């Protein structure tokens, strides 16, 4: 449709509360109908890829949770697993299962933030407070194991920082027991809410072919009905051993994305319960002194251990020359780390494949011919994290 004299161009953002951070969308409006939308990004560009090229593989563990600050455990796991793939090592089974528990808890925590903030975008502020109460309970667990509430630094190349604390499993089980009741409550509050249905059904539609062509992943792609989940397609951390379903939408609208995420939280609970049942005993890091620091008790009686400790702390390790891409299913879609090693103790190139970046690119398709109020719904239903978009 052509831009006419009646067309009004306005800015939404970069500080609009409904843009979830610093996103600016330039909208061409005719009356209230959207004729064009141009997202403008880069207000939060932090240059993490450059930073990661100048530090050792181990020092870089602090960056991923800061890139995408809602699903921090998933981010850390994505990076360390990429380095493990580069090194060609596999962490022990206990570490893998603990990672699965933490990643799924992280997914639930992230989806709860999405649920709360997208509800507040549609003027339902009570859901925001309920969802954040549940999220805090998960963050309390993360604080219990790592000492940090949000930027944990708990994952290590080849394993974990240390084993789980006493009482962790019981606390997770208690949380998982409470979760279905809470989710049912949110569903009653939103799914059965006439205003919520009117605002989301048939709004911000993204057809499946467009979603694939734009490289969308995660609930945005699955809401359009395309069956692609990295946990199923390219299993990592032993996900192939867990029974879970991949929820799919049919129409590709905002309501489908909402139902997909709600179901994903239930599936995550299913995975966590299976993982708790089969949590094996054993070490939580590989027995390789060239990669993982030796245990403290060895340092007092083994000169070898002291040498390994010194080399790892003062220099780090040298992966072989090569390049790998490792992706995980983050709450927003496929989060991938592409690492190029030149054989030195620092990565030559770190590329972060950010799901929000690709999903946001499809925003103009979603909002075309919609109304101004639909833009808020569309942005909320993509579940963008601007740190992930700009990196």
């Amino acid at each position, binding site marked *: 449709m052509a831009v006419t004299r009646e067309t009004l161009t306005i800015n939404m953002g970069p500080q609009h509360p409904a843009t979830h951070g610093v996103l600016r969308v330039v909208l061409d409006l005719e009356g209230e109908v959207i004729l064009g939308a141009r997202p403008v990004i880069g207000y939060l560009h932090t240059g993490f890829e450059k930073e990661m090229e100048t*530090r050792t593989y181990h*020092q870089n563990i602090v960056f991923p949770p800061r890139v995408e600050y809602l699903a921090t455990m998933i981010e850390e796991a994505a990076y360390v697993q990429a380095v493990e793939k580069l090194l060609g090592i596999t962490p022990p089974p206990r570490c893998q299962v603990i990672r699965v528990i933490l990643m799924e808890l992280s997914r639930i925590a992230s989806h709860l933030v999405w649920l709360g903030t997208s509800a507040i975008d549609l003027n339902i502020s009570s859901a925001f407070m309920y969802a954040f109460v549940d999220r805090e309970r998960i963050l309390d667990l993360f604080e219990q194991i790592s000492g940090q509430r949000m930027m944990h630094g708990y994952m290590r190349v080849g394993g974990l920082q240390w084993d789980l604390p006493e009482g962790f499993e019981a606390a997770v089980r208690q949380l998982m027991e409470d979760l279905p009741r809470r989710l049912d409550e949110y569903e009653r509050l939103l799914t059965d809410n006439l205003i919520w249905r009117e605002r989301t059904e048939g709004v911000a539609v993204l057809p499946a072919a467009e979603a*694939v062509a734009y490289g969308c992943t995660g609930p945005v792609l699955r809401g359009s009905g395309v069956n692609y989940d990295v946990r199923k*397609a390219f299993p990592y951390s032993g996900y192939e051993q867990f029974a879970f379903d991949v929820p799919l939408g049919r129409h590709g609208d905002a309501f489908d994305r909402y139902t997909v995420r709600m179901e994903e939280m239930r599936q995550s609970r299913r995975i966590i319960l299976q993982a708790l049942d089969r949590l094996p005993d054993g070490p939580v890091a590989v027995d390789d002194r*060239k990669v993982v620091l030796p245990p403290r008790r060895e340092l007092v009686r083994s000169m070898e251990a002291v040498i390994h400790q010194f080399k790892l702390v003062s220099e780090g390790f040298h992966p*072989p*020359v090569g390049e*790998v891409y490792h992706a995980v299913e983050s709450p927003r879609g496929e989060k991938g780390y592409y690492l190029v090693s030149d054989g030195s103790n620092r990565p030559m190139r770190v*590329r972060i*494949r950010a799901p929000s970046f690709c999903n946001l690119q499809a925003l103009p398709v979603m909002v075309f011919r919609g109304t101004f109020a639909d833009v808020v719904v569309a942005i909320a239903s993509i579940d963008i994290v601007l740190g992930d978009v700009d990196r």
Partner: protein
Amino acid sequence: MSDRRPEERLDERPDAQPDELPPALARIADAVGGAWLSGAVQEVVEFRGETTLLVARERVLDVLRYLRDGARPRFPMLTDLTAVDCCPREPRFEVVYLLTAVDPRPGAPSAPAVRLRVKTRLPGSDPRVPSAVGLWPAANWLEREVYDLFGIVFEGHPDLRRILLPDDWEGHPLRRDAPLVEEPVEFVGHVPKVPSEIIPRVPPRTRPT
């Protein structure tokens, strides 16, 4: 590390061209089909179970179009597009396309997905490569990002502007000769050292220790 995996010593680069295609690669060679036969693919690298095709710059769009439309399996999704600066090596830049084969039909059962990486090398002076926006709209922002951060020009791109940095920014920060500007954090009684210098860079070892 070399004592653990003798087959991957650093002096034996894993990207050496194999004389005969290993069985794992025969499948990919089949997928690339015609483009493979006509000599567009210069080299195949297999590392950690991932396959990379090295393609000449002139043929990169042909190969990508073939992979999207004609290959078995088809690759309808451009998952990622990025670049690597190999300075001081010449050709200096590598543009990397990461393709994923997914079933784009709604509700189709999940098929075992396949990934393929396509690479093309560009010279350090005036790096140019044809744009893939006509094949995947996903390439639009990704190419703008590579242009912004590396200065690689995508010919035929509909809207090649900076995306992450301000329009009046000078230079391309992800090039290896672009310096990292850091501020040392000062504490009392502490000699300031910029964070990236706390552990010095140790170059690749020529010989396993």
